[in-house]
């Protein structure tokens, strides 16, 4: 009832005022009554006496009055709170342990949840009405097989078609994430960047915090009015320019091209891809300046390179269905205008599938896809840790209840209702939880940042906005109340059941002890079970990590330095890139300290993924299927020597394998196993086709060598059939890419020591080159960074849970021994052997641990089905893992029980009997 709550609320906040009102009202009544008696002839003193007599006890009335006002509840609560503080301070060590374990538990949960929240739940920060933004896709967007992203990507020609028609919607936008070098020369200075369409910011509803956002005019390729313009992020503005408004109009070198800064993005806007922020944005129209002759805006690449994410904003009130229908109506014309000539032969296929619009919602994010499962797994792990901590605190609180049984029963005897005693304990639990949670919040905000920093790598930095927003705070509060409930309910229940008669039994060992034993037994089972689950998970994740780390790669990852060379600004015609790259490789190979150097299109585990269909000459053609395909890479001579990949048969490429020579190929063992089982592959010929429908033929190649298997694109895969083609015989229907990977093997010492000399040698050949260095080791390690973090986290949390469970078991057993001291003493006096006493103590504990292990094994088996995707190299329901975890748990449990058991065995019967 509203009036009720308003009055109660008022009672809460205006205590003194209400006291005054009560006094005034009662005073008025009494005065009037006295007056009326005086009027009928009584003298004043008599009138007062009669009034008071009739009125009844004034204080009692006030108390009833307050009760009716709802003030009493508040009074009691504050009294309980004071009592709770006093009782927690009475046992400082136990309280500190409880608060600390709660802080860790709540902190870990909040930290993980805040990442989950910003990665998986929050809509794009800083964007106006993000629910009206939709991403465009179609079943066969990436038909040409050029895009290796799983995002829907479109060509520039396609975007131009959409842009013309965006008035049918609330606007359109296109973007492509990139990395930009901001250095004017010398060492590279890479930042995250983005190419955006002219109305990108306008359509998102994002305003510049200083200066302006882009206009459609900025986006016109080669526009002369403003020249190339750029926007910088708020973060970069603060970091590099000290937040000075003078920055507008200042020059900024991007990929060696002078741009003018026209605006700064607002605080709290992090772009359209969750987890990936940008520091510099430039209009799509400036892309030809940066990519030069390789520009994706120029024919034929404008219809061939699928690199843009295209999104639409729905008009206010426009439904997704309406917009989709409009778009599909335009599809034939869009297809006509955007279709690559290269696929004209199969023009019936291009964009045949209908457009689909997907709400952008929380933004697109590769990060989300990659980390969804590990994050949820870790969230599950930390929730279990918190439960284990809760069980510990519950046990602690119950011990406290038992120790205070005398006090409680006296209170009962004096008329305290049972629910008041229970309330007292619940308040104590809530206070503990609140203290733990506030410390936990501090841990969380530090922890979540530290964790994101762990996930982030120099090559792919992750920017996540991690605010303590309502969602996170709400989560923490819910967790806090839930934990207080979980560990507070048992002690509270117990406190409520203390009988007044207990006060009379001086050393009473009433039922309460038995009931406590039952409760704490249950808690032990819970702790052991949950810890077992955590240990199983930790074993699985650590095992996964180890198996990946120990995986034979097929090459010497620790002996190779990678240099990725960008040649966009070099005065080299695309058609002559092959010889130019060979010159670069030769220059590097002749540097002192370099044993071998070789060029290649892709490097192991660099996420590029070229594959072609293989037809063995003399064998009937099979229809194209994944089983008929092989990975491929273009390499220069001595690439295998650089990587330490053994040559099994035949020869390496040499200078004669050039354009016009015999088309040759080198294949790996897996290729031979797949296509030439039991035969000698060397000297055989194969036909190669690429494209999902085998649109292009790469002609017929002769196998001249066989090399050992090596990891191609992922550590988790088995060695794939792989072909190596000579870079000098590049015959794809498009020119060689503008960047080349040079792999370098040092004669001795660390690969990274070669960075300055190699850089000098490359820039001596051509000064406009930009070179990014990385060791192959780093590249390999970063590919299983996620597994490493999950392993480290689950391992540490399992250790924490084991520690907590061990402490809990120790506490329970030690308490049981203390309680049964007299009994044990008597048994020993009657002839029980110390070993028998230990057995007595350990028997119950072993039973509890066994039940816990069985329960935990059940939970692990059930939960393992959720982590299958995260496990590598061992089955999720690995029996060895389960046995290992059981042994660990049993060992920890018995150690925790053995210490108090030994103490029990050393009890001196004489002393016990003397004490009576």
């Amino acid at each position: 009832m509203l009036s009720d709550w308003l009055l109660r609320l008022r009672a809460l906040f205006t205590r003194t005022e209400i006291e005054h009102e009560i006094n005034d009202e009662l005073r008025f009544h009494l005065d009037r009554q006295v007056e009326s008696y005086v009027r009928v002839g009584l003298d004043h003193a008599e009138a007062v006496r009669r009034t008071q007599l009739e009125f009844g006890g004034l204080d009692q009335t006030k108390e009833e009055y307050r009760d009716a006002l709802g003030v009493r509840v508040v009074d009691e609560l504050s009294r309980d709170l004071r009592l709770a503080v006093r009782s927690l301070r009475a046992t400082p060590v136990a309280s500190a342990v409880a608060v600390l374990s709660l802080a860790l538990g709540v902190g870990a949960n909040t930290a993980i949840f805040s990442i989950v929240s910003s990665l998986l739940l929050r809509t794009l920060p800083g964007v106006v009405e993000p629910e009206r933004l939709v991403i465009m896709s179609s079943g066969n967007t990436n038909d040409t097989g050029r895009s290796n992203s799983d995002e829907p990507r479109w060509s520039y020609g396609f975007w131009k078609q959409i842009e013309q028609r965006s008035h049918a919607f609330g606007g359109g936008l296109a973007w492509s994430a990139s990395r930009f070098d901001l250095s004017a020369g010398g060492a590279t200075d890479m930042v995250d960047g983005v190419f955006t369409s002219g109305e990108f910011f306008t359509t998102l509803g994002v305003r510049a915090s200083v200066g302006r956002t882009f206009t459609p005019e900025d986006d016109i390729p080669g526009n002369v009015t403003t020249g190339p313009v750029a926007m910088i992020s708020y973060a970069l503005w603060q970091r590099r320019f000290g937040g000075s408004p003078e920055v507008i109009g200042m020059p900024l070198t991007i990929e060696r091209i002078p741009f003018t800064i026209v605006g700064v993005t607002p605080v709290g806007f992090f772009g359209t891809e969750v987890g990936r922020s940008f520091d510099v944005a430039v209009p799509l129209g400036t892309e030809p300046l940066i990519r030069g002759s390789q520009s994706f805006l120029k024919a034929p690449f404008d219809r061939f390179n699928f690199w843009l994410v295209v999104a639409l904003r729905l008009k206010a009130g426009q439904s997704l269905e309406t917009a989709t229908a409009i778009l599909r109506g335009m599809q034939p014309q869009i297809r006509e205008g955007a279709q690559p000539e290269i696929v004209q032969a199969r023009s019936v296929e291009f964009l045949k599938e209908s457009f689909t619009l997907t709400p952008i919602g929380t933004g697109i994010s590769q990060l989300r896809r990659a980390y969804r499962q590990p994050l949820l797994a870790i969230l599950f792990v930390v929730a279990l840790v918190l439960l284990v901590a809760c069980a510990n605190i519950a046990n602690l609180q119950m011990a406290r209840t038992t120790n205070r049984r005398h006090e409680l029963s006296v209170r009962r005897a004096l008329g305290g209702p049972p629910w008041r005693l229970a309330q007292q304990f619940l308040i104590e639990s809530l206070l503990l939880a609140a203290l733990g949670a506030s410390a936990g919040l501090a841990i969380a905000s530090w922890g979540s940042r530290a964790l994101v920093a762990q996930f982030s790598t120099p090559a792919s930095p992750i920017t996540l906005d991690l605010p303590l927003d309502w969602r996170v705070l709400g989560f923490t509060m819910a967790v806090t109340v839930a934990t207080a409930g979980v560990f507070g309910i048992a002690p509270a229940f117990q406190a409520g059941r203390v009988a007044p008669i207990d006060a009379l039994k001086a050393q009473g060992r009433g039922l309460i002890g038995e009931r406590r034993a039952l409760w704490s037994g249950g808690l032990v089972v819970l702790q052991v079970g949950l810890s077992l689950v955590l240990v199983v998970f930790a074993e699985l994740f650590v095992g996964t990590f180890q198996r990946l780390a120990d995986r034979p790669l097929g090459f010497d990852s620790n002996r190779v330095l990678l240099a990725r060379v960008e040649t966009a600004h070099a005065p080299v015609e695309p058609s002559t890139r092959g010889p130019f790259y060979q010159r670069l490789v030769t220059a590097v190979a002749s540097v002192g300290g370099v044993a071998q150097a070789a060029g290649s299109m892709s490097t192991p585990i660099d996420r590029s993924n070229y594959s072609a269909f293989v037809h063995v000459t003399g064998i009937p053609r099979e229809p194209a299927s994944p089983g008929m395909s092989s990975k491929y890479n273009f390499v220069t001579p001595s690439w295998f020597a650089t990587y330490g990949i053994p040559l099994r048969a035949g020869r390496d490429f040499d200078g004669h394998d050039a354009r016009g020579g015999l088309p040759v190929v080198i294949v790996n063992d897996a290729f031979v196993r797949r296509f030439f089982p039991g035969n000698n592959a060397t000297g055989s010929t194969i036909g190669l086709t690429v494209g999902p429908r085998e649109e292009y033929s790469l002609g017929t190649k002769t196998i001249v060598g066989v090399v050992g298997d090596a990891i191609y694109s992922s550590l988790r895969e088995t060695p794939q059939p792989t072909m190596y083609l000579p870079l000098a015989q590049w015959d794809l229907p498009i020119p060689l890419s503008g960047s080349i990977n040079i792999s370098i093997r040092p004669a001795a010492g660390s690969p990274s020591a070669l960075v300055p000399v190699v850089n000098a040698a490359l820039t001596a050949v051509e000064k406009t080159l930009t070179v990014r260095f990385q060791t192959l080791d780093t590249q390999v390690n970063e590919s299983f960074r996620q597994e490493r973090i999950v392993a480290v986290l689950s391992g540490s949390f399992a250790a924490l849970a084991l520690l907590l469970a061990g402490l809990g078991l120790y506490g329970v057993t030690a308490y049981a021994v203390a309680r049964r001291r007299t009994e044990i003493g008597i048994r020993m006096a009657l002839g029980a052997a110390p070993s028998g006493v230990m057995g007595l103590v350990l028997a119950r504990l072993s039973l509890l641990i066994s039940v816990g292990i069985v329960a935990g094994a059940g939970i692990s088996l059930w939960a393992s089905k959720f982590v299958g995707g995260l496990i590598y190299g061992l089955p999720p329901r690995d029996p060895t893992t389960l046995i290992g975890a059981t042994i660990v748990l049993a060992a920890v449990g018995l150690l925790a029980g053995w210490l108090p058991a030994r103490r029990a065995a050393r009890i001196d019967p004489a002393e016990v009997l003397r004490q009576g």
Partner: protein
Amino acid sequence: MSDDRLELPQGTLDLLILKAVALEPQHGWAISERLQQMSRAALQIRQGSLYPALHRLERRGLIKARWDTSDNNRRAKYYALTRRGRAQLEADSIAWRKLSAAISQVIETA
């Protein structure tokens, strides 16, 4: 104090209070006076119990309180019937009449 006055049956004080403030807003003392008057002093109401009852009614939204100046120029808390209170009063009066009639019936036939 004479002992032939009646103790109030449980729960009837609320009904009497509602009735007492039905005509016009009254302060606590006036309500107690009025109850004495109306019952011709037949009912024994401990004056102290009046105030908690008033507040219960206020919390239930049946009456509302307001500070005002009394006839002798002192500040007093006046209680007035709300719309809900009036409805409650009517319902309770009917219920009470039925109940007392039924009880009389039983007693007389016995």
